[in-house]
């Protein structure tokens, strides 16, 4: 049996129950939220529901501290995005913001209290060179100097090696696709770019269309090996589905788009675990339409057992004896999905035995 649902999940599903918690409950809840990186998000949720006044002062104080951090983070992201837009303005090409930066600039629910360390953008593969050059001129530099790492990113990955600003130390990831070149799934970036929507008031900046945004978030989460922020990422999808779910035609579009981009499997998992962990409302018709990504019964039982553990906060109160194994198996699976086995073996061999020696001073 997977561990009992953490208090954090109960409150995310039913925020109105927050008023009934004891001081000891709050103590545990805030530690779970802290280790899931969801403290500021919890503050935003309780604030939006007008529930902050119902909770004990000491707990409210902690949530307020996180709220200040969240507010400052949103400010910093908007400022940093303006610097990026300025650096790339003369190229005259569309810049698509991904994930956290997109939620923040578009004012979408997952931006409330979401903390992240880098800004992700997507451009056409043919524009990569000039984007990299323009960013370098504006003060960003590549962080991976090792020749092997450079080749790893440029030949096999879906992004340039991460770039860091020399003075501000902010990070930017420049993507040309949403999955590595080596992954089995290859959603066509041209389709994603063609459907992208302009950000009102932000000339030259775009985000993915609503359905694509959900699919990207789902693909990212269910192809990622390190699920330390798994619950936060699942909460992002939950927030997007709540926000876009009421728009006419959204659910049909989501199912069709998943087929077009070959992303039925990640969408299936996203809807399944959103419903199971966060009680996300999904219309019955949409559930059925998105069922084409359902794996076989045995595989699904295994994935349920793994994700039911690995998607919980990384806190001792949310773990059982199998949690470390579940996280490790999902880490292996993610690498497997991102690279063919032989290439993966070669890459891991290089990382284990050759890279450290190259990194040592000559």
């Amino acid at each position, binding site marked *: 049996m997977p561990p009992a649902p953490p208090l954090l999940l109960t409150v995310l599903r039913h925020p109105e129950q927050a008023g009934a918690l004891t*001081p000891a409950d709050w103590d545990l809840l805030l530690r779970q939220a802290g280790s899931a990186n969801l403290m500021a998000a919890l503050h935003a949720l309780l604030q939006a529901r007008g529930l902050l006044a119902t909770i004990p002062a000491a707990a409210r104080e902690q949530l307020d501290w996180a709220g200040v951090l969240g507010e400052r983070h949103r400010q910093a992201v908007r400022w940093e995005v303006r610097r990026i837009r300025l650096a790339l303005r003369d190229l005259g090409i569309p810049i698509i913001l991904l994930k956290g930066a997109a939620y923040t600039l578009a004012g979408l629910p997952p931006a409330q209290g979401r903390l992240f360390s880098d800004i992700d953008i997507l451009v056409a593969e043919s524009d990569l060179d000039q984007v990299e050059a323009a960013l370098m001129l504006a003060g960003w530099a590549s962080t991976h100097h090792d020749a092997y790492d450079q080749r790893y990113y440029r030949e096999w990955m879906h992004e340039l090696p991460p770039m860091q600003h020399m003075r501000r130390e902010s990070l930017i990831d420049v993507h040309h696709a949403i999955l590595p070149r080596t992954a089995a799934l290859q959603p066509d970036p041209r389709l994603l770019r063609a459907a992208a929507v302009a950000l009102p008031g932000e000339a030259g900046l775009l985000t993915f269309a609503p359905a694509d945004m959900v699919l990207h978030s789902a693909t990212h989460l269910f192809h990622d090996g390190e699920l330390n922020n798994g619950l936060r990422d699942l909460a992002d999808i939950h927030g997007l589905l709540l926000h876009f779910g009421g728009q006419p035609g959204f659910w049909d579009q989501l199912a069709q788009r998943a087929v077009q981009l070959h992303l039925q499997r990640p969408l299936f998992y996203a809807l399944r675990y959103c419903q199971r962990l966060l009680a996300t409302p999904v219309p019955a018709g949409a559930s059925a339409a998105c069922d084409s990504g359902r794996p076989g019964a045995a595989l699904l039982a295994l994935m349920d057992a793994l994700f039911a553990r690995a998607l919980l906060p990384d806190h001792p109160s949310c773990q059982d004896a199998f949690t470390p194994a579940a996280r490790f198996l999902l880490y292996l699976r993610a690498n497997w999905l991102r690279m063919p086995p032989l290439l993966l073996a070669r890459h891991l061999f290089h990382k284990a035995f050759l890279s450290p020696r190259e990194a040592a001073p000559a």
Partner: protein
Amino acid sequence: MLNVGSLARAELAAQLAGAGIRLRTGAFTTCLHSAIPSLAEGIALLYADYPLLAADDFADFHLQLVRPLNARRWIKPQVKLLYDRRSIFKPLPLDQAFPMFEWGLNWCVSSRANRYLIVHAAVVEKGGRALILPAPPGSGKSTLCAALVGRGGWRLLSDELTLLRLDDGLLHPLPRPVSLKNASIEIIARYVPQAVMSRPVTDTVKGTVAHMRAPAASIARSGETARPAWVVFPRYEAGAATALEPLAPAHAFMQLAQNCFNYSLLGAHGFTALGGLVERSLSYNFRYSLLDEALDAFDRLPPPPL
């Protein structure tokens, strides 16, 4: 409410090693858990007057000090500080367990309590008016602070963390042991003979460190806020004559901002709060070599304009 001092030493050590204790310091509660004897010794000596909360009460910070399970355990034993089971600093020699707890608790407050503008400064109060002593390490801030509260009749608000609440512009007390370094330890031991001091710990990153117990009266009044009145930047210079020079508000503002932990994080709120503080206070540069003269100079500070 139960105090740390009301527990027998063995009982305190057992609770620390068992479920941990919930220690109330100013506005914050820390759940502290450790089986290290020197830490229990430091807590018993310096935190005797602080309230203990019940095991099912809410705690702001969860700190644990443990001995890492490595081979060094037998040769050079170490201590590791965990924040809710995550390691936050590099391990230190086991003997430094108590100073590590003090630094860890400072880190908890200064990196999280964003309702306050947090200045790295000592702060003391007399007659409802607070004196802020910001300073980079080595300026003699803690020595002055220990002398002011030990002998000058000032109330201790904090030796390290000046908490300026953003909504009301008042200073919120966090009285905790005063940290003394190197020569200061001997100076204060002589200047404040009744001071209760912890055993000096040698070879820390700050040299030799000892802590002076906060006056019981300051701890009892840790719920009372104070109004900022003076900002004094002290500098100890051997043999220097006592000199108090007025400082232009703009300079005081910049120097205070440089000594803040979260000034840039708070953005406009931090700017407004710090501006208000400087406006309502008188600011000085202060040079001294004799504690008697320093205390006398602080007693003669003119009241700030209303």
